[in-house]
């Protein structure tokens, strides 16, 4: 029977306080939202969530990858293939992008469950990630949050087996973004709630309950999408969902994470789940979709995940609205950015094993590991006698560092290091770190990030991150 074998999440540690949005100083403990920083986007957050999901699992076992987002940078060029390369998945992995609707995350989950149920794949990785922009000063700017969730869908060893799903399609212009729009639009709020969200979410939940012959009270954890706290509460009441069963929608902590919102709530439910729990999940967007899961005894065997709670506990307040504007590229610029062809596509093509998959090579003669890929060994000068090794999931050690005040960033300085990874020396930026924390010998792990925007498109590479406490 198909189900969720593993899960992981990613929420940026940078949090924008509502007080900062209102032009005041950051306030400890006040409401806030998660903000992807200038080197993060839907792809980078999705890769990190997927890495967290796959921890302890063989990446070669993944038959297919579905990536769901409304905020991928390219109109033409797949995100899933990029994510698969960053994760170093098999060459023959099937990849699909799902987009165009807030429902894309639950759509992707549903499609993956169908594929495993049908036997066309044994394991499917689902990654839902979003990084939406509300216009400066708008209500959406405050209510949105950025984040990603990932699920490994499989047959055996599921921690939560799939019981069924119910979906409806609806044609409504409530929340939308057209070609060329930087910001998400919304029609009048009461219309969105009264004619879009509330009927949609309640209809799919009731439809699923009817299909399963169950009632709301049968579910111990209920994860509902919601455009805001009040509408979310009202929908839960209308569905007679007990407050104790309702998964915290994280308003004022994470924010509405778009395509990733419902998946993040599902991950949140799974983190706290125990055997015998039944989980109901309902997403909204151009209609809606509800799914039911039964938690199995495997939940106790799954190593603790870096999930929603783990990430929410690791936060850094954004000091000012100006920093946020700079990080999200909302400031006017002297020069119109990159309509040039950008970095050489052929160099990118030749170096994708290093840059995207973060692979080094191990010399078959002397055993030394080096980066980037080279024809002649740095140590023993053997020629063309190497095997590729994945560095992205290793732990590195800072050998030396500097603080670069010249590198364009919203919050200088940029920490630049030479980091040793299994003997290979790599020139890397370090993120999620304050300068005073940097030291020689600091152990670091690695995250996929944007390195720059040459050519007006995101260029991705890896950066070092200090190993978090409570790893």
């Amino acid at each position, binding site marked *: 029977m198909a189900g969720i074998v593993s899960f992981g999440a990613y929420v940026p540690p940078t949090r924008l306080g509502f007080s900062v949005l209102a032009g005041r100083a950051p306030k400890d403990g006040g409401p806030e939202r998660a903000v992807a920083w200038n080197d993060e986007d839907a792809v980078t957050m999705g890769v990190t969530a997927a890495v967290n999901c796959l921890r302890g699992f063989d990446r070669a076992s993944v038959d297919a990858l579905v990536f769901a987002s409304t905020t991928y940078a390219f109109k033409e060029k797949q995100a899933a293939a990029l994510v698969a390369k960053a994760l170093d998945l098999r060459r023959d992995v099937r990849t699909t992008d799902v987009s165009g609707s807030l429902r894309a995350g639950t759509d992707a989950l549903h499609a993956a469950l169908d594929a495993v149920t049908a036997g066309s794949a044994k394991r499917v990785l689902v990654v839902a990630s979003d990084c939406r922009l509300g216009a400066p000063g708008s209500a959406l700017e405050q209510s949105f949050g950025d984040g990603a969730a990932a699920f490994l869908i499989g047959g055996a060893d599921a921690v939560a087996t799939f019981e069924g799903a119910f979906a409806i399609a609806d044609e409504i212009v409530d929340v939308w973004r057209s070609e060329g729009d930087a910001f998400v639009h919304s029609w009048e709020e009461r219309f969105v709630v009264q004619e879009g969200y509330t009927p949609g979410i309640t209809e799919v939940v009731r439809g699923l309950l009817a299909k399963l012959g169950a009632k709301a009270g049968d579910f111990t954890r209920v994860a509902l999408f919601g455009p805001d706290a009040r509408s979310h509460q009202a929908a839960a009441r209308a569905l007679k969902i007990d407050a104790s069963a309702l998964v915290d929608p994280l308003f004022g902590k994470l924010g509405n994470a778009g395509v990733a919102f419902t998946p993040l709530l599902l991950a949140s439910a799974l983190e706290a789940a125990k055997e015998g729990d039944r989980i109901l999940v309902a997403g909204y967007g151009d209609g809606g979709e509800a799914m039911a899961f039964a938690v199995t005894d495997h939940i106790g065997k799954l190593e603790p995940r870096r999930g929603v709670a783990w990430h929410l506990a690791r936060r850094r307040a954004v000091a000012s609205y100006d920093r946020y504007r700079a990080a999200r590229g909302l400031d006017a610029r002297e020069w119109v950015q990159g309509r040039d062809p950008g970095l050489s596509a052929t160099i990118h093509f030749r170096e994708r094993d290093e840059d995207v998959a973060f692979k080094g090579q191990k010399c078959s003669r002397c055993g030394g590991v080096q980066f980037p890929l080279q024809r002649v060994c740095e140590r023993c000068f053997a020629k063309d006698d190497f095997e590729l090794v994945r560095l992205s999931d290793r732990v590195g050690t800072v050998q030396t560092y*500097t603080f670069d005040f010249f590198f364009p960033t919203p919050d200088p300085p940029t920490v630049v290091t030479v980091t040793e990874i299994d003997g290979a020396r790599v020139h890397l930026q370090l993120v999620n770190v304050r300068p005073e924390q940097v030291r*020689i010998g600091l152990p670091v792990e690695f995250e996929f990030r944007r390195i720059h925007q040459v050519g007006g498109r995101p*260029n991705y590479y890896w950066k070092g991150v200090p190993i978090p406490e409570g790893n």
Partner: protein
Amino acid sequence: MRADALRDKAAVLGVGCCPFGENWDQSPSDMIVDAAYEAYADAGIEDPQRQVDAVFTGSIYSNKGPHECSDALKLFGKPVTMVSNYCATGTDAFRIAVMSIAAGVYDTVLVVGYDKPKDRGVSGPSVMMDRVRDLPQTPAGWFSLCASTYFAKYGAGREELARIAVKNHKNGCLAPNSFLKREISLEEALSGRMISWPFGLYDCAAQTDGAAAAIVTRADLAKKPGAARILVKGVTVIAGPNPQKDPGNDFLSWKPTGWAAADVYAQAGITKPMDEIDVAQVHDCFTLTELLTYEDLGFIEKGAAKEHIAAGTFELSGELPVNTDGGLKAFGHPTGATGVRMIYENVLQLRGKAGKRQIKDARVALSHNIGGHPTACGIAILGRE
């Protein structure tokens, strides 16, 4: 190489150097002509068309190849070669010139180093990026990578670096063609805005336009009544691994300098550099580069720079004056010109013509460049006969 292959085979007959600076009103050609014609006059060359057999030119910013130099000087119908080797470009052009003379290929050749970074429209250090993993980065970022490690091991810090900047600014005031003629205080040096820790503004060389030239000839042709010859004792350029990926790098020194020093000292027959060298021009693209170079050249023990900086060992009045004309820091750093500018300064010092910055009875002079990440080092040693 054979240690005696180059020693005393070639002589520097004449040198020239245009004022370094933000030469807004000068093209590369203008600067090349100024430097080369000064070198012609200094060498007593009246008919360069007939007397110059070949030209070796170096630049890292020019994309026009050797033609830029030959067209400026209208030196046609003879070999003209362009050399590019990061900051060692000037020394490398000089090395190839010396080899061509030692090999007996030519009698007299012209070396021209130049660069025109101020035509790029940006201030400050260059940003290099042509592939994804080339972080948009500055040379300050590369050269500062030895700081955390060196400071942790040997206890030096930003103050030692600042003292080097103060010294070079002071020396620069005494060189007529230098860019920055302003002394700075230690406090001023320490208070510049941060570029890449530990380098503040005053730890970084002044990037300028400039050109420098030298006439190199066969030693036996250089004999002039009443004038001591300036002979080439040794010259080398050594490549090293990129320290950012070199698995063996300890970030306490830059390897190519040590290798190049061993090579050039063997050529020149030098065993005690501190005692045998009278004056040195070393690559101070950043103050820390100069500090490490004191040690990497074997002037002093590894780790001893702090005490020697405090003692003034490398000041004009010290035991071994370094960067007597202000160095890259104050004289300026047009990359391709810098190695040749150092030859210019050393020739003046060896002739006793260095004015207020003259080192008394200088007989052996060393010049040193290190460039790239750094990945290449060039050293030349000249001696007065």
